[in-house]
């Protein structure tokens, strides 16, 4: 008996803390959000434990469809821009010497280690009506009056691309690094054109990086309310802002919970598509 217990002790000491912590602070809160989405909101903003479908019925509303539509659009455009920017960049870095590679990856990571709000604030200073960019354009007489750049959809997309770009560069770079370059040489020796070997070898073999990066850019974009707050200035409402408002200004937690459940379902669908395409969940943690 004592022997058996002794054998179990290391298992319990290693596994129990994490299991306890994750059940209490990941599983239970999320289940609670699900429950909350079926509860009734009292006029004073409190929550009454009475079952209702009303919160979900409220979601069938053109205004909300519009917000979800814009969010998906911003996420899709952000992801596409990140892919286009990162792919050639990752190849360029991967071609350098070991030392150059490490240095350049450090240069990619350093801004990402500094406060993201401060960097967004930097963009605000650049893009404002009296900001750096407008000042430069005015002095060069390229424009006669300042262009309104801040508080628009493109500004929000710029902010998202800026904040999330490293999440695309890192996984693509990792997959380009892993690519066996001798395959390309072989294809070349066998007479393949560079376009051919790119489409048939390089692209398929580096696509796991693109997929992982896309998930790591697309999903957070949906929820990054501070980017749309700061650069969209309330003109661009995204799912994240909508949920935040229900929990703060509107004090309608059940509706906010229902909106969150929809967002969770969207996320799970995306991750499911990702794993069906052969993506590994482990690849989603690398960049962070």
């Amino acid at each position, binding site marked *: 008996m004592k022997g058996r217990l002794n054998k179990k002790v*290391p*298992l319990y*000491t*290693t*596994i129990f*803390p*994490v299991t306890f*912590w*994750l059940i209490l*602070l*990941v*599983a*239970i*809160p*999320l289940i609670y*959000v699900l429950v909350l989405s079926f509860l009734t909101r009292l006029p004073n903003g409190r929550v009454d434990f009475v079952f209702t479908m009303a919160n979900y019925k409220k979601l069938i509303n053109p205004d909300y469809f519009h917000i979800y539509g814009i969010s998906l659009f911003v996420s899709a455009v952000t992801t596409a821009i990140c892919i286009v920017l990162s792919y*050639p*960049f990752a190849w*360029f870095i991967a071609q350098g010497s*070991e*030392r150059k590679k*490490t240095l*350049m990856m*450090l*240069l990619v*990571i*350093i801004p990402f*280690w*500094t*406060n*993201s*709000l*401060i960097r967004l*604030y*930097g963009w*605000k*200073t*650049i893009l*404002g009506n009296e*900001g750096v960019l407008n000042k430069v354009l005015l002095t060069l007489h390229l424009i006669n009056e300042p262009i309104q750049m801040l508080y628009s959809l493109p500004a929000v997309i710029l902010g998202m691309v800026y904040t999330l*770009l490293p999440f695309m560069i890192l996984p693509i770079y990792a997959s380009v690094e892993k690519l066996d370059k001798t395959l390309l040489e072989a294809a070349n020796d066998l007479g393949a054109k560079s376009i051919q070997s790119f489409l048939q070898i390089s692209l398929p073999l580096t696509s796991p990086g693109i997929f992982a990066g896309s998930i790591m850019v697309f*999903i*957070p974009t949906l*929820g*990054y*309310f*501070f980017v749309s707050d*700061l650069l969209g200035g309330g003109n661009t409402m995204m799912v*994240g802002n909508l949920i935040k408002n229900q*929990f703060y200004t509107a004090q309608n*937690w059940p509706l906010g*919970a229902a909106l*969150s459940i929809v*967002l*969770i379902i969207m*996320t799970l669908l995306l991750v499911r598509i990702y794993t069906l395409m052969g993506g590994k*969940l482990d690849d*989603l*943690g690398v960049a*962070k």
Partner: protein
Amino acid sequence: MKINKKIGNVASIIHASIIFIFLYLPIIVVVAFSFNKSKINIVFTGFTFEWYGKILKNTRLIDALENTVIVAIVSTLLAVIIGTLAAVGMNKYRFKGKKVVDALLYIPVVIPEIIFGIALLALFSTAKLKLGLGSLIVAHTTFCIPFVVFTVRARLVGIDPHIEEAAMDLGAKRIRTFFEVLLPSIMPGVVSGALLSMTISMDDVIISFFTTGPQSTTLPIQIYSMVKSGISPDVNALSTIILIVTIVVVILSQSRMLRNIKKK
């Protein structure tokens, strides 16, 4: 053919330069304006160190900085202990519910942070837990644990389990084996997990936004509210200092790696 290749090379250098400019442009602006005499970030009127002196007098900023550091250190410590144990246990043993623990580890990484934030807020307020440093630490520890588990687990894969057995055959107790054999060999994983946790914690906006109380603002939350209403130039100065500290830490932690590469 050769000319084509040259054009390609030049194009990719230009492309890479544009990306680096894109990444650093806002940082350069913040640093430049931290030395600006004018109070507003619009025109550069002259050089000054004034704002660096003002930081110390801005108690809200200093309090926020203190809170940020406390939360980052405590939650990193907790996450490193829980996460390292978990990685070791999950690597070594098979047990019922392992898949569930695994899934619970991926959830905070995959779902949008805002959902995690409101879920914790709902839990804390229903449990009548006062929002403050405590709730922040609990929340941050939760989202840091998976990253520690992942980095330590990646390190464990390359370790020969026989070394541990050998130590125990030679009479070392389980605890001694853990601290003197296993821990040193997974230390690089533990350290990078800890660094990752620290940076994620110090930069977190969304989850902190929902789990912080009025008396326990962190720096990102303080800056968030300041950016909305209008920022004072001492924030530029503080950001510059944080930036320099970050760069020094990154360089120090990577310098050994760089030196090794140089030798090759």
